[in-house]
């Protein structure tokens, strides 16, 4: 078929250069996943935007915003949405399996080792130290995300943040019930605050 023949039957809008095939998608997501210690997002952005140029930074941000807004593990959502944009349903599956299968094998192997050797005193001490440090890393990430809210002194956001923290972290209330109340409340309060500041 000549390259300029119309209606080649491809559902893609403009002919974007060098869109990856399914196997390439699988390998690319497997690579970013295996590189990603403590979160894959940074590596996903680097691979998709900088290395392969499959998306512009804006397209990536827009796609990630959608995935962040939907429930579920963000990076898993991102793999599915990105795969779908490139190659449809099978592209989604290729990216999803690439992202999850290799680290799943690793983590399950570690679980097996833990089941056998988890009681060895030296390993217990190591894991104890690692988990203390890992909690510290989580606190640091939380702090970094909280900073913009603190700087803006956004009262609605800070009240909602503290309310959820107390309900789930201190009172240990079930997450679904807490969110079924706080999500509508937070949306309504944010909407009211924006309308007032716009008026």
């Amino acid at each position, binding site marked *: 078929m000549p390259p300029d023949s119309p209606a080649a039957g491809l559902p893609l809008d403009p002919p974007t250069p060098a869109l990856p095939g399914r196997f390439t998608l699988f390998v690319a997501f497997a690579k970013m996943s295996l590189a990603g210690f403590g979160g*894959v997002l940074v590596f996903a952005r680097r691979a998709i935007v900088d290395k392969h140029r499959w998306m512009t930074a804006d397209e990536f941000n827009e796609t990630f915003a959608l995935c962040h807004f939907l429930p579920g593990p963000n990076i898993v959502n991102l793999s599915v949405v990105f795969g779908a944009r490139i190659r449809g349903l099978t592209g*989604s599956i290729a990216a999803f399996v690439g992202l999850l299968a290799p680290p799943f094998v690793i983590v399950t192997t570690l*679980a097996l080792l833990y089941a056998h050797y988890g009681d060895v005193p030296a390993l217990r001490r190591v894991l104890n*130290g690692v988990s203390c440090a890992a909690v*510290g890393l989580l606190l640091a990430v939380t702090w970094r995300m909280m900073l913009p809210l603190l700087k803006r002194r956004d009262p609605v956001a800070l009240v909602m943040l503290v309310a959820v*923290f107390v309900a789930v972290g201190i009172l240990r209330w079930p997450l679904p019930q807490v969110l079924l109340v706080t999500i509508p409340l937070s949306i309504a309060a944010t909407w009211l605050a924006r309308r007032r500041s716009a008026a």
Partner: protein
Amino acid sequence: MTGIGTLVGIALAFGWLSLFAVGGAAAAIPEIHRIAVDLNHWMTDAQFADAFAIAQLSPGPNVLIVSLVGYQVAGVAGALVATLAMCVPTAAMAYTVSRLLHRAGDSPWPALVQAALVPLSIGLMAASGLVLAFAADGSIAALVLTLAAAVLAAATSLNPVWLLVAGGILGLLGWI
């Protein structure tokens, strides 16, 4: 202990939870802890802290902590069921939504909803930190290590892996 009933229980628990995992896996940790430790007694507090440590030490998405919980309950089948239950329903939802709205358009609602969700997910991550600190920090030295790691990670651009390694070495030396 293992059986179809157990696997169905794992699938239902994590499938349901995933629908409320706003802000990703780190924000869902208090609920994973509630399901695995408090409600079903699948694992102890210490085992949960270990699972978190192992998940942080391995590459891949943080959500794989549910694979470790699933493994603890029902072996490899449990790990697989927990992981798929946590990932597939929301992935299917993301796929459907992305197909329906190819781009956000001019509606102010997505941005508004997102602005409303951000403080909730940060509050949940702070709750995760507290729940895990209770599970992991059994001594003053442990608490000091957690706080030191937090300050170092927040104030410097040190690769987090080194902090995990340092924690492991301090633990091995018996300081924690």
